[in-house]
């Protein structure tokens, strides 16, 4: 409960930060999108299935935004967001229906394979997708309002803050629901889960669609904020970053992936300012340190610490 309050407060801080220092807005939106995507990756990861291709959902929905905006230039931003997210989620539900049959490394590889095929096609079909240069997305109206760039960014910041809070709340509810618990049971013993009369495929499919929904939503917001979509959005390195963020922050609480995204952005920013050539090295070292010292991520370590200290207080 306290962590929920803390999350709400930190979202408020982000909003104020964005409004007081307008130049941080894009960075904050992108950070929240990363956090939301990593939250998505965390759902199947609860069942022990880590996907190395989840960025493809962001890519699919971002291209849906771009295609729709190109075909219907007067389409409203809200409609774009909703339709693109639906497209990504639909894709996740179709692809999910066969990928849930696979476990472990095959699960990860199949996701990777599909994402590679999508990225390759988007890069090659130049007439349709603009190749590796991508497609520009003109700034749409929002809820009927025609806005300037600064206003539009403020709106998107509001949207991503609200979405992040709602998604976090949903994640917390989901992990405590019967399906969410079954998903975790899949990690410890799938056969026993099936003996209880629960379909492992169905449970994983539900989680997969939910995670696809989160990542698609993040991808659509990202596309609108950046005004440009490229095949790079679905590359396997991007998917790797999402897994990285999830592990970094920890997935025991919805706040984890967002904390991970914040640390990730901070490390990237610090490295690009002070050690431009070696930012990947810095990220790698951060990941190694976290895995070695805090196996459950930053949030996991924090919760363990809280647990210990409260036990110490009441012997």
């Amino acid at each position, binding site marked *: 409960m306290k962590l929920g309050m803390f999350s709400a407060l930190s979202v408020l801080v982000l909003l104020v930060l964005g409004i007081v220092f307008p130049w941080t807005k894009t960075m904050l939106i992108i950070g929240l999108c990363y956090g939301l995507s990593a939250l998505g990756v965390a759902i199947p990861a609860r069942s022990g299935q880590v996907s190395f291709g989840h960025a493809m959902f962001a890519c699919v929905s971002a291209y849906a935004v771009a295609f729709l905006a190109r075909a219907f230039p007067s389409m409203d931003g809200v409609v774009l967001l909703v339709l693109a997210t639906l497209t990504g989620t639909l894709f996740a539900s179709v692809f999910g229906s066969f990928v849930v049959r*696979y476990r*472990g490394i095959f699960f990860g*590889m199949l996701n990777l*394979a599909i994402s590679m095929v999508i990225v390759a096609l988007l890069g090659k079909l130049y007439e349709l997708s603009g190749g590796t240069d991508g497609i520009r997305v003109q700034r749409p109206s929002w809820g009927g309002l025609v806005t300037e760039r600064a206003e539009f960014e403020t709106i998107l910041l509001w949207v991503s803050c609200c979405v992040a809070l709602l998604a976090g709340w949903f994640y917390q509810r989901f992990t405590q629901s019967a399906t969410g618990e079954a998903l975790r049971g899949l990690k410890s013993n799938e056969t026993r889960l099936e003996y209880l009369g629960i379909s492992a495929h169905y449970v994983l499919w539900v989680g997969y669609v939910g995670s696809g929904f989160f990542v698609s939503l993040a991808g659509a917001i990202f596309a609108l904020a950046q005004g440009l979509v490229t095949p790079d959005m679905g590359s396997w390195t991007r998917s790797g970053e999402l897994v990285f963020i999830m*592990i970094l922050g920890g997935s025991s609480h919805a706040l984890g992936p967002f904390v991970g995204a914040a640390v990730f952005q901070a490390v990237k920013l610090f490295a690009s300012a002070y050690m431009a050539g*070696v930012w990947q090295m810095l990220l*790698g*070292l951060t990941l190694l340190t976290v895995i*070695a010292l805090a196996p459950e991520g930053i949030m996991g370590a924090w919760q363990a610490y809280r647990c210990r200290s409260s036990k110490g207080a009441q012997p």
Partner: protein
Amino acid sequence: MNFDTLLLGLADGISYAGLLFLVSLGLTLIFGVLGVLNITHGSLYALGGYTAASLTTFAMRHAFDATPVLFIALVLAALLVGLLMGLLLDLLLLRYFQKRDPVIQLLVTFAVFVILEDVQKLIWGTSPYAAGEIVSRLGTVELFDVTYTVYQIGVIPSIALASYIGLNFFLKKTLWGKQTVALTHHREVATAMGVNVKRIGALVFILGAMLGALGGALAVPVSSLTPGMGAEMIVLSFTVVATAGLGQITGALITSLMIGLARSMAVYLLPEVDVAMPYIIMLLVLLLRPNGLFTVAQSRRI
């Protein structure tokens, strides 16, 4: 499409498959024995390539430029990189994270891979490297009407095949090889029977690393070295390994050939999907055989 294009595609595919097989062989060996899906294998491929390029350039500059010397320099570079990096990674990393979840182990190797990407850039810079001297030395061969380099159609495939035969000999005929196989069957029983798990583990890791670096070194004369080559190769060899079934050595040979040929054919026939070809094959194979082409069914443990 005429006969010449077919022949050219075939030759390209065989040469490409040879490289792919060397890298995949190392990857699948390490996975089969140690249970780690080693992403640093991509770095080893790149490091092997860069080291080989530096070593051959060095040899030529100091007038040791007889063809066999250049060739030995290539192979030596790979073996050296494999030995050093394999030992280092095994001692520092894998042992430390040995008891962790396979996903965590994979992420550890991912972290090291990312670190090594920057190390490469620091040492060799970001501009492309090329060392094609040895290819022109070995000359060309005429196949019907198509002229092809001996290096690509002869040297690479023979080294790949020799590695396959050599590894099989090692695993089936030598004591350490038999211990390795025992380890893959049942780790605990093998340990109880007196197999030195640490030693075999290190040996396998070094062997695998050498194969990865060898793939990189042999790729030097026929392609230019750029940052990111390791990333591309690791994803591709993962595809081979997953399509073949994890830990399947003969499977990796056949799958590499299949994927190599399909990809080079696609370059000529379906240029839109040439990059996606390996993944399309993998998707089709895994749809029909969920655990890979050559995996034998296992009983479930309750």
